[in-house]
């Protein structure tokens, strides 16, 4: 089937088999920043935004994203620059394999995600084996604070 969508702000057209996952289609189109992890929707390393909702692209059929507005980690410097900056400055990463998914997940957080407890629950679908999560949680809180400041400058 034909998939028409927007990916990272640009038109995206691809011929996709009905069984293809969004992950396969994105990676096949050269967007390899989104990683394959568990392939069963529990690790979160393949998280992308579909109409501003974080989804596990390994389980999301590409055909279902027809017409959607899709953002991947490659678009985050444009879509959510404060999140990227927060992860870089807080050193919210080690090996980096979960980082694309963490950043995309944080970029989808609403203003209701405020404190550490909220962040830890919001990110509980994004595993990290390296950091112990402390610096990731700090990066997420930092990103949320930056975004609050952007919305309502002092």
């Amino acid at each position, binding site marked *: 089937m034909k998939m028409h969508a927007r990916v990272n702000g640009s038109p995206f057209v691809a011929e996709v088999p009905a069984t293809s996952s969004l992950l396969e289609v994105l990676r096949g189109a050269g967007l390899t920043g989104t990683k394959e992890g568990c392939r069963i929707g529990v690790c979160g390393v393949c998280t992308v935004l579909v109409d501003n909702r974080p989804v596990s692209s390994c389980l999301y059929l590409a055909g279902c994203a027809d017409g959607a507005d899709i953002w991947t980690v490659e678009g985050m410097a444009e879509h959510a620059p404060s999140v990227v900056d927060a*992860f870089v400055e807080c050193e919210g*990463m080690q090996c980096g394999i979960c980082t*694309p998914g963490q950043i995309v997940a944080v970029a989808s957080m609403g203003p209701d995600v405020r404190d550490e407890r909220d962040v830890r629950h919001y990110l509980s679908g994004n595993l*990290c*084996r390296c950091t*112990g999560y402390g610096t990731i949680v700090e990066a997420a809180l930092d990103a949320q604070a930056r975004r609050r400041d952007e919305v309502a400058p002092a």
Partner: protein
Amino acid sequence: MTLAWPRVAGPRVDARDKATGATRYSADVEPEGALHAAVVRSTVPHAEVLAVDASAALAIRGVTAVVTAQDLERRFGDELCGRRVRDMPLLARDKVRFSGEGIAVVLATTRQVAEDAAALVVVEYRELTPVLDALAALGPGSPRVHEAPWRYDGAVVDQSHPPNLQSELVEGDPVAVDEVLGRAAHVVTRTYRTPSGHQGYLEPQCWTASPRPGGRVALLGTVKAPYRLREQTAKTLGLALEAVEIDPVPLGGDFGGKGGVVDPTLCAALALWANRPVRLALRAGEDMSATDARHPSVVEVSVGCDADGALLALRVDAVFDGGAYAAVKPIPSANLHGMAECALGYRLEAFSVRSAIAYTTTLPKGHMRAPGAPQAAFAIESALDELASAAGVSPVELRRRSVLSGGDRDAYGHVWDEARGAETLDAALEAADAAPRPEDRERPGRRRPVPSGWRRGRGVALYARPTAPPATTSLRLAPGDDGRLVVELPFPETGTGSHSVVRDELAAALGVDPENVEVRQVSTGLLPYDPGVGASRVTVGLTAAVHQLASRWWESGGTEAVTVETGSGTDRPALSYCAQVADVAVDPETGQVLVSSVVTAADVASVLRPRSHRMQIDGGTVMGYGFACLEDLLERDGQVWAPNLAELRLPTAADVPSLRTVLVEGGRGVGPANVKAVGELTNVPTAAAIANAVAEATGRRVRQLPLTAERVFWALHGETGGETGDEARDEARGEARNVARGVARGEEGPA
């Protein structure tokens, strides 16, 4: 001492690329025209392979070949593969020894076709009796896993050993231990068990090999020790060392698992055989059930103290399940160095350690973060609490009386100028009592308060680890095209921040802006030997090499490229203690364990990148928490029952306890940067600290990991008084079955 973590000035060298998806990992590399390999793996633990029928697979469009062991033997001869002990074939020859072992490989034009076709290859087996229990494997009458393991190249056993022995390590003096324990006021002897586990990296293993002119081959993939893989591959395939090149690529996590499996060598063989680039990528589930896992253990500890609670002697007798092959273990003994050093932390009149690793027909076992040490520490540090209870002293007091101080001789005879056992223990306890805010004592992702009926407990555990002198490595510094300096190094960034340490240290040594230093991993052909990432040697070795590199650069005028190749250093080793205090709450009705907080005191020297250092501490503690409470590959009946990340249960951000760390600063480190190793420190004592806390909370001792609700429930409610959770459960279930049978026969149930 400090509780604060300053922000580092310069971001990691790899931060921006990792945060924007630009970093290319193994799975992101796909050469033009590459064939995709999918491995047909054994579905049974032990069998003769009678026939392989690939006709259905070969009929699929896009399949170019189905390769068997015979095909590879005709091309490369019959050398077996391995890092020290070469006992593993690239593909099974006539016999499979674990479920998951490769039998054939489908090569196809796409990955999907290769995987689909691999499922159509029919293997005919004649099943043999599996060997599933390490203790039974070493006893008389067990079927043999290998006919004559002492004949393998690099074997560390001989014909006098039990035929299923992979490796045995013996330290200390068992006769002296008997004598000293004979006059001890209190002695306990207990047995502890730990399961097999996966390292838990989130990047499945993946390799790409490309043939090069002149029969050479280039290999790129999830490889933490490129020079060792080069050696393994050249030896197995009958090639000159220079004919194999390992190309650079960062790793998506390692934790010991990406050092030594045979699959990359298989990938190189396939590329040479097909004369085309070949990509072999594992799915996560395949990685978890067919690469290398942590050794399950059964560890018996006998420990005694005098009437005042001073330790006298320690005996540790461990049997590990090594799985079907020793091939993946890299150290000369093919054993686990965490066992060799397990009596290090205390003053003892006598000690003995025996670590026997058995061949079984299960997944081959390899290294995972401080190999052998978490298993040993769980056993020893649990037994110390049991001894304290027998002696009527507090667990803290028992440890404080026997930890090493500066000038003390350890059980192995080494005198340490500096040893800060008591300081480290006290720092952890002080911090545990002085949480900055009450909520810092509770799990930060917790939503509801802990119910009032839950029982609270606190446990303590210690671990001591030496930092060895700098190991061999190499570095090259050259002027770049754009006026920057380019430093080339021989191993990948696994995530620890090692490449950033090189940049920072070199910039400091040369007095230049770190922004002007570029760090690059290069192919094995371009730099002298390096043993790879592991054994917590990276920062110590690299910083020593950086300092040499900087001096050479100035000596040579600072304009021409210079290379340094460092030998093993002769510096005195340093000792680090790590003390952890765990606070738990246990639901007496269900056995559920909630770990509220883990306080870590780490004995450190200079800290180069504080946030990277902290992530080694936090990440290690969380891994220790997973080992204690959650993770089990569930190897049963020769199969991995939890071959996916849903069932392996790695800790999430919401699961983890409150983590607080105290750095016991001012220590004497090793090498010019004055550092102590930290990567394999904090994951070691966590399980014992938590088990000790659960024992304090419940009055029952669970001697088997993980501390699942079921095990704790049966320890609380079973008849055996919690000898181990599983024994109590089995006993209770057996009673239930007997009652059910009685009822079925028309007998009365118990009143």
